[in-house]
């Protein structure tokens, strides 16, 4: 076998980032204050806005931009000045700091335009309160969705969800979300004057399924490839920017392009790291304020992060087929976060993905906000995979000294992962 070819930046990742910059600039240029504009949580049913032609910005995407520009502390300080906590749900509350920005022109990407509607599920104890504050801002309406929970669930959701979502998610939860989405549509029709077309909505859902099917193929390519052909710092923007534009032909085609670029790299034997010694999995949200983190260990140790949840959940978490479009959309989101954070779904899925990707170690980001970290770590370790729990916040660097993170991961690699990988 020939020596692997060291890769540069994935063109699709650069293209996606450029597209997003242009899209956001156009949004700034075209947006008239008071015109329909939504701020939505990442796990909210954005497809309704897409179908109605209402632009939306994803709350957590914006937080990632602010963090990458090292502006999170400014934003949290504005919350603190107004008597709100700066130490809970920072990933969700960062954008609220933008609402209080006295100088939005100096903010990242020209600042966050004021939305007319904010949409979020009532998850956690603080999330809905963050959006309550949004709803108190002039011209902003908060439309809350319930976040229902199940008493019992089948385990292998990733096999069931595309077609058997009714039994997998449960009729009660689906009935609830369908009712709420019907209310949302009526609300948007009345307040924006936009029309909701069932035909257009069906097109959006079909495009989304096409997009996520491409992501599924890409994930399978990456899982099987040795060495790893694409850096997570490339796959994340190449997947997630189209994810925020899902339901468009651009997003579908971007997912197709990503697949083809990865396939070409696999065919060429390309590697993100010369001398790949160990394959790692990153469980948790992206460490947005320190994206260089993911590269440092491949340069020092030949340890490559081959997996993040962003491509994997795109592959397994979105595809839904059904005859009733609104119920099908509800099936995508009524239990979305359970796929990532609620055992047994989350735990079994991470194990499945770890095995498919042949990882030799897992770095598990454990934030303070309430998630099912024990079950994930337990399941992976029970499967024989070393796990390092990294206690940090993904946007708030106050608890995440880079030197400490590096020493912790480096020590774990040397002690637990590399000796096994080199065997």
């Amino acid at each position, binding site marked *: 076998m020939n020596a692997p070819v060291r890769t540069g930046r994935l063109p699709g990742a650069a293209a996606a980032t450029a597209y997003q910059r242009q899209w956001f600039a156009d949004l700034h240029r075209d947006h008239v204050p008071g015109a329909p504009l939504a701020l939505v949580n990442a796990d909210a049913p954005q497809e309704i806005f897409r179908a109605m032609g209402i632009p939306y910005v994803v709350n957590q995407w914006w937080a990632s931009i602010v963090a990458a520009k090292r502006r999170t502390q400014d934003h949290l300080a504005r919350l603190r000045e107004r008597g709100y906590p700066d130490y809970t749900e920072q990933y969700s509350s960062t954008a609220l700091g933008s609402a209080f920005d006295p100088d939005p022109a100096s903010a990242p990407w020209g600042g966050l335009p004021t939305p007319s509607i904010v949409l979020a599920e009532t998850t956690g*104890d603080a999330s809905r309160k963050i959006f*309550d504050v949004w709803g108190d801002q002039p011209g902003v309406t908060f439309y809350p969705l319930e976040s229902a929970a199940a008493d019992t669930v089948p385990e292998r959701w990733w096999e069931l969800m595309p077609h058997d979502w009714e039994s997998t998610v449960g009729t009660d939860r689906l*009935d*609830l979300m369908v009712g709420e989405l019907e209310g949302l549509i009526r609300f948007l029709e009345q307040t924006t004057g936009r029309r909701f077309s069932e035909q257009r909505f069906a097109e959006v859902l079909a495009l989304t399924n096409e997009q996520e099917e491409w992501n599924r193929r890409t994930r399978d390519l990456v899982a099987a490839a040795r060495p790893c052909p694409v850096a997570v710092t490339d796959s994340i923007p190449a997947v997630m920017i189209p994810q925020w534009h899902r339901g468009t032909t651009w997003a579908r085609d971007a997912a197709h392009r990503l697949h083809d670029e990865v396939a070409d790299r696999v065919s060429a034997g390309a590697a993100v790291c010369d001398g790949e010694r160990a394959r790692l999995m990153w469980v948790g949200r992206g460490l947005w304020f320190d994206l260089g983190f993911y590269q440092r260990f491949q340069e020092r140790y030949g340890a490559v992060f081959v997996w993040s949840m962003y491509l994997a959940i795109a592959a397994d978490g979105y595809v839904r087929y059904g005859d009733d479009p609104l119920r099908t959309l509800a099936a995508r989101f009524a239990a979305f976060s359970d796929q990532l954070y609620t055992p047994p779904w989350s735990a079994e899925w991470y194990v499945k993905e770890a095995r498919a990707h042949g990882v030799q170690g897992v770095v598990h980001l454990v934030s303070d906000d309430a998630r099912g970290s024990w079950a994930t770590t337990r399941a992976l370790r029970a499967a024989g995979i070393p796990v390092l729990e990294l206690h940090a916040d993904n946007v708030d660097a106050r608890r995440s000294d880079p030197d400490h993170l590096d020493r912790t991961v480096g020590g774990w690699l040397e002690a637990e992962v590399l000796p096994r990988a080199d065997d």
Partner: protein
Amino acid sequence: MSAALAALLDPALPGRTPDRPVAGYVGADVPVELLTAAGYHPRRLSGSPHEDASAGRRYLGGGLDPVACSVLTRLLAGSYGPLDVLVVSRDCEASLRLFYVLRELRRVEPSVALPPLHLVDVLHLPHRTTTRYVLAKVRGLRAWLAERSGRPVGDDALAAAVVAHDRVRALLRATGELRPRRRLTGTEFLGVVDAATALLPDRAAELLGALVAELADRDPRSGLPVHLTGSAHDCPDVYAAVEAGGLLVVGEDHDRGDLLAATDVGDPGDPAGLELALAERYQHNGPAAPRASIAERAAHTAARVRSRDAAGLLGYVREHDDGPPWDWAAQRAAAGVPAALLERQPYGRVDPDALDRAVRALRAPAVAA
């Protein structure tokens, strides 16, 4: 002290020890009437800040409300005695996460002794769609309890349980109305509520009825009257510290105090309406911090400050209790009285210096607030 109060605050009070199957439950969102009607002695699970909770923290993590870690630790240690069933509500995120860990433990570590487990997912947005969902959850719990006990939960038993628990709630409200007249301390009221949830409802009503009669003639308690907001309190330690500092807690807005008895199920008139009456009662059972909007909380707090003649608003927020700090700015603005916040406090304790500062702030003239 009145005889009824002494009895209610007595940990060895006969009747606290169950003589029938026990249903442990977590959170005030569990429709306790169904547990009673199914023949169980309902027992609300409390944590203990005086016990090591590292076992629970190992499963739930360090970022969750320590009450849940303590409850889990005590469940694993068998500290609650035999529980025939365990029903968990999602009254807050910590309870939901506790349920998920318990469910996962039953799946992957079957050697851990845990009772049969059920989640009752009562939600609270004020919408018809939510009511229909909660109704399905009430029916689901009823069916699950019937399956566990081997007999249906009949309409007659359920109607009787509704009447009994409504009676207890009415008497708790009557007891609470004695607080602006300073007839009992906040610490005592917290103990009374705890006893009322530990006893079967008929016995609780008997003692509460006597308590209301006996307290009418009691000398007023001392202290600056304050309304307490923020975290719920499953032990008296913080109340005792606050009242030892010169304050008198005359009201609160958490569900181990006044909020537990804020609303009734009522008589639907037709047994077929019992489940819906339960669903609507628990959906709208009062604006608890983890689930209500900031506006609802602020309006409720302000109304309670006025109705209880509180001279100050004290916020106490336990570490990793994420909801209440977001309410505080609006509550303070709406209260119309001096206000002070004790934030990120350790479970069951209050920082004495911070308490001193808070007491001084509360004693300042209202205009300074």
